[in-house]
């Protein structure tokens, strides 16, 4: 469980990035933190593994304040995948990259090998095992960064903009993977701009603006509120855009799911042809 209470944070340049945030994320929850560039989303989630410590307020992970624990100890439970993989990757081969943290955590050699192979397979990276991460495409490097964190099987996973540069197939895989993590009772927190991705996964949505939380609720409710979204520089998912324009037909506006949309429109057609 992650509990943030009245968290303020200022960078050394005195810019106050977080202005009093309180949020509780329960075990097994899937939360998407959304909002415009510079809203403080990445700054906020960096508090969850102790990379940043609040200037005022507290962040507790499983009941322990992050100021009373080391980043290394926190990292075992809270895995963080950065927005830009180049801030994370440094090894000579993809395999070494994934093995690095496992070695640091003191896993046995045969376990390390097993976990590396598992992570490579999961993210379709097996053919790059001996390749330098820097010879891979942006999307592939992003997957290496994800694999290197997944390998040590943290209880909570923080994904900062995981869908950037990913193609359709990889996004679907990522979605399935998050569902799988949830089925295992793990917590997933993602910072993302990708409204279509969020509409498909339908997590709890937390909307941030200028260092504060401005909305917190179901995806279906928040992603279909045009005024709220505009405030945060987010656009409606495409299905919701369609239904906003169909209000004269008496159809509901809060639709984000493709299949629900299809069912509703087929019913509406039946009604008019009768």
């Amino acid at each position: 469980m992650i509990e943030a209470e009245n968290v303020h944070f200022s960078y050394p340049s005195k810019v106050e990035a977080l202005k009093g945030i309180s949020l509780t994320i329960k075990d097994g929850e899937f939360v998407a933190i959304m909002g415009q560039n510079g809203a403080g989303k990445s700054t906020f989630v960096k508090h969850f593994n102790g990379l940043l410590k609040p200037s005022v307020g507290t962040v507790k992970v499983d009941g322990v304040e992050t100021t009373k624990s080391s980043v290394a100890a926190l990292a075992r439970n809270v895995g963080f995948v950065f927005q830009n993989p180049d801030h994370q990757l440094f090894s000579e081969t993809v395999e070494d990259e994934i093995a690095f943290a496992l070695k640091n955590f003191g896993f046995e050699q045969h376990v390390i090998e097993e976990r590396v192979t598992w992570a490579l397979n999961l993210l379709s990276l097996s053919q790059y095992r001996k390749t330098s991460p820097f010879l891979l495409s942006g999307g592939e490097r992003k997957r290496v960064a994800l694999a290197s964190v997944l390998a040590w099987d943290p209880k909570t996973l923080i994904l900062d903009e995981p869908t950037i540069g990913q193609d359709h197939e990889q996004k679907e895989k990522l979605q399935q993977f998050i569902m799988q993590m949830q089925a295992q009772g793990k917590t997933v927190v993602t910072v993302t701009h990708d409204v279509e991705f969020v509409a498909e996964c339908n997590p709890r949505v937390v909307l941030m603006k200028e260092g504060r939380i401005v909305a917190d609720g179901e995806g279906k409710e928040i992603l279909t509120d045009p005024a709220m979204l505009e405030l945060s520089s987010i656009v409606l998912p495409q299905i919701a855009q369609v239904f906003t324009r169909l209000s004269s037909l008496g159809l509901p506006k809060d639709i984000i799911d493709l299949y629900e949309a299809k069912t509703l429109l087929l019913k509406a057609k039946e009604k008019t042809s009768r």
Partner: protein
Amino acid sequence: MAIIEIKNLTYTYPGASKPSIHDVSLKVEKGEFVLITGPSGCGKTTLCRCFNGLVPHFYQGEIKGEVTVAGINVFEHHTYEMAKHVGLVFQNPENQLFALSIEKDVAFGLENVGVSREEMRKKVDWALNQTGISDIREQSPHEISGGQQQRVAIAAVLAMEPDIIVLDEPTSFLDPLSAEKIFEVIYKLNKEQGITVILVEHRLDLTAKYANHLVVMDEGTVRLEGDPRQILSNEETRLIGVGIPKATLLYQMLKKEGFNLGDKTPLSSEELADQILEALSPR
């Protein structure tokens, strides 16, 4: 008139075991808005690097075939000669920015081609305005957010007023509203100034409506190309793994269930909503 003509291009990076581009032929007409899509690693970025000669001049490697841009054979001319004709915006803005202030970064290309001070000021102002970063022009490009950095990179290219702008996933770091604004800027440049646009994107939900030429790549080859409406209704496009816009998908799903909304495959929510209203409104 074709502004870009690629004939039987095959290219292999140094040390790579197989070609990244395999026998690609492609013609782009002046003033087109071309959208290039396809799975990760399909060769989209490599193809973009051929338009201004980064491939093969900078990346070396083995190349066969012909690339002609604005009447110039790219392989026989330097990359700096191509810079007047082709502006490139990369995936990661950090790789492109280096000056001490945003303004200086945007002016850099113009300084290199010897534009007068007055002219330079005008062009830089215009480019900063178009991308919405006038108010932060004095700041360092390294202390702003990733989204803002991408705007600086786009402004730097816009300032050169090239014939062709090539953008490789230019808005992936931007929030959706800022992304939409950037796409609108690019679309306006295309419509009003006649600048040829080549846009590489996975997210067709956001971009299909701007394009009049869609290119689908897979494993280093061009698999399908032509009118976006036709290409997106082609089952093969979906099988290659292209993310079809939700509005287009919904139209297809309804059609399959016997709810036919006409022959025009919609590319945006506006188009689909209009078609539904037309079909369901009482007459």
